[in-house]
């Protein structure tokens, strides 16, 4: 890469179970307005303002065809340029980065918004399943995740307690995050005693229904340095698809994540992620996923994530704190969650993460996931200061 791309400002809403008080455009503007105020930027293609926008939303969740029409005013799209990405928000950042590196744009606004409270989660997720062989069986992503959890735990001897530890850690971490939806003091016993939804997944192993938005501004290196004293650089990024049919995959593995991580690490020059990364924000819609995704990210060997969480390495104060924000389990909407992870990583690197700050964090990892049993993973490595 000839030039780096920097994140110059981020904003997120407090995540909430029902934001009926805000229409999509209102929700989006809630995070866009502070960005404009913080950076002093306006919308302009004269080289001194935001020259295009990448949005991220889902027609199925919004219940509206061309769901981005709801936020056109908010993202300054009139007589300007906007595109909508239909995966997790981390991919919208990837898309915006390509727009800048292509030399065709300088300063890009990225925003993702979602009100899960408006839709029937199971029906939306069921509609993602192949309609010929899977959809008629009437299951959703939770059921599929339960089968993945079962296979993963069976193959590697991961225990329900180890999964529960993820929920306990993350909901506890959320107490330090003013944006988190459900910061709660829970115990392993609480998790294991909560209602069984789809074995082995229990109520406290899942994330709550959540509404919210996240936005950020990306700029090419020269401009980024002028806009802020604390730009955070995207050092590495990639994403990858897995095959759709659950029976064609080894659900105890996550090859797509391995591939995405390998490319992002190679771009960022990282060879030992556990050592070189100071803080990781991972999308875990279900508690077992944080363990499985950590293996995919190479923080430990296959089947070793249970031991990794037992060792305390991923707690606050550990060698590699994972999800200081409280993660997705503490409440982030689908589609926004990956962008929230990046926003949290930016706060960590800027030293502005408040009570959830990992001291001296220099390199951070953010991860986003889309689809059934983690069919599409995005990985981003962020850093501050000089080029690696």
């Amino acid at each position, binding site marked *: *890469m*000839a030039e780096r791309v920097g994140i110059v400002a981020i904003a997120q809403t407090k995540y909430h179970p029902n934001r009926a008080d805000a*229409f999509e455009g209102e929700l989006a503007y809630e995070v866009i307005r502070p960005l404009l105020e913080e950076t002093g930027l306006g919308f302009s293609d004269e080289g001194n303002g935001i020259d*295009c926008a990448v949005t991220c939303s*889902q*027609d*199925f969740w919004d*219940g*509206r*065809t*061309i769901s*981005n*029409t*709801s936020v*056109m005013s908010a993202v300054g*799209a*009139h*007589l*300007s*340029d*906007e*595109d*909508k*990405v*239909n*995966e997790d928000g981390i*991919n919208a950042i*990837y*898309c915006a*980065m*390509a*727009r*800048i*590196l*292509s*030399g*065709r744009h300088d300063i890009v606004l990225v925003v993702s918004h979602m009100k899960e409270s408006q839709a029937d989660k199971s029906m*939306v*997720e069921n*509609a*993602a399943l*192949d*309609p010929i062989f899977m959809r008629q069986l009437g299951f959703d992503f939770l059921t599929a995740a339960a089968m993945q959890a079962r296979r993963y735990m069976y193959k590697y001897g991961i225990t329900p307690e180890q999964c529960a530890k993820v929920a306990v850690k993350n909901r506890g971490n959320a107490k330090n995050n003013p944006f988190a939806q459900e910061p709660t003091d829970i115990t392993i016993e609480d998790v294991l005693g909560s209602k069984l939804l789809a074995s082995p997944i229990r109520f406290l192993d899942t994330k709550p229904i959540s509404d919210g938005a996240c936005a950020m501004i990306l700029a090419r290196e020269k401009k980024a340095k002028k806009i802020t004293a604390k730009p955070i650089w995207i050092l590495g990024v*990639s*994403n*990858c*698809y*897995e*095959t*759709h049919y659950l029976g064609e995959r080894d659900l105890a593995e996550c*090859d*797509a994540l391995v*591939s*995405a991580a390998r*490319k992002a690490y190679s771009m960022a020059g990282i060879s030992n992620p556990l050592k070189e990364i100071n803080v990781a924000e991972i999308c875990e819609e279900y508690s077992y996923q944080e363990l499985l995704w950590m293996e995919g990210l190479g923080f430990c060997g296959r089947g070793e994530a249970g031991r990794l969480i037992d060792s305390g390495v991923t707690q606050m104060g550990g060698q590699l704190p994972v999800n200081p924000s409280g993660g997705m389990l503490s409440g982030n909407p689908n589609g926004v969650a990956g962008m929230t992870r990046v926003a949290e990583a930016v706060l960590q690197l800027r030293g502005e993460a408040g009570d959830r700050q990992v001291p001296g964090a220099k390199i951070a990892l953010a991860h986003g996931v*889309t*689809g*059934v049993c983690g*069919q*599409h993973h995005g990985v981003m490595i962020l850093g501050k200061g000089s080029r690696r």
Partner: protein
Amino acid sequence: MANRVAIVGIGQTYHKNKRPDVNMPEMVNEAVRAALVDAQLRPKDIEAVITGNMETFEGVYLPDHWMAVEAVAFRTPGFKVSTGGTTGASAVEEGFNFVASGLCDVALVIGFEKQDTGDTTAAITACSTPVWGKGMATGAIGEFAKQALTYMEKSGAKEEHAAMVRLKADRGACRNPYAHLKLGLKSVEEILQSGYLVWPIRLLDFCPQSCGACALVLASEGRAGKITKKPVWMADMITIHQLPFRAGIFGDITGTEPYSQEVAAEKLYERNGITNPIRDIDMAEIYEPSNWEEMSLYEHFHFCEKNQGWKMVEKRMTEIEGEFPVNPSGGVLATNPIGATPTIRIAEAALQVRGDAGEHQVTRDVKTAVATALGGSNWTVMTLLKRSL
């Protein structure tokens, strides 16, 4: 500076009303295979896959996930975009950005739509949120009807001119092996006898609902020369959105707002030193959802002066043999798999630049071509293609 980008592989399906013989991924696979064959590449050469589709049209959430294997996306980076009617061009634009940025050297972009799956008009009507009033939308057709009325009143165009556009489209379609509607129309009168859908839009004035897919392989300058002897260079792309402030979703019928097409065209022409579009550009593939729209689009893209679009039609300037051919492929009036439609415009323009359009290759030598897309609340995407940069 950024990499230059070329189209090195073009593939599309035969477009049809119904495709019971394939499911959606299999249909996409046909276009993908054709593009790979055209580029002489293997699946593993593809470094990123960008798909474009309106998911509510088929009722499939995350359709790119369903077709990961068939679209060569399995084990490959990529994502899906959707921006309404412009989707198939937005996907190309992101593929263009990915290659130009150096993030990858070879990208596959795919637009697709399988309209035998459900009522697309209904899905388009679902663009309007019930929050703003239920039943207060007639889908795209109603909007185009309003446009047609306004155009008639302002320009003096008659229903005959709209029929001539349809006749031209059908002539092209009959020479294009991939086109969907091939009616073999003989006369303007025949068209004027077809019934009204929404007054004054006739059944034959409007685009059909098609099943189909179109895939393009894009490559960086360093790779393009190794892949093909006939790269088609993507000189530029531009996207301009518009908000429906006034009285029409597809442009302002009060005539006081600029059209997104004008803004896009003016910027694109200025950036690329085009001062006289029909001299500096050799042909166009435009997204014309109705024949009425085609005439006003000529004006918005500055192919002619205001209110003169119908005269270009009358003078047969935009026929295959004409001095400025528009939609020799038969255009959207003949073939409309929505998510693929803008991709097909770019593919067909690229075939013309390559000289590979076969029966519907235009008479004029095509060194420069423009492809356009239309969608959303009058959003425009334009692509400028060149034989050499």
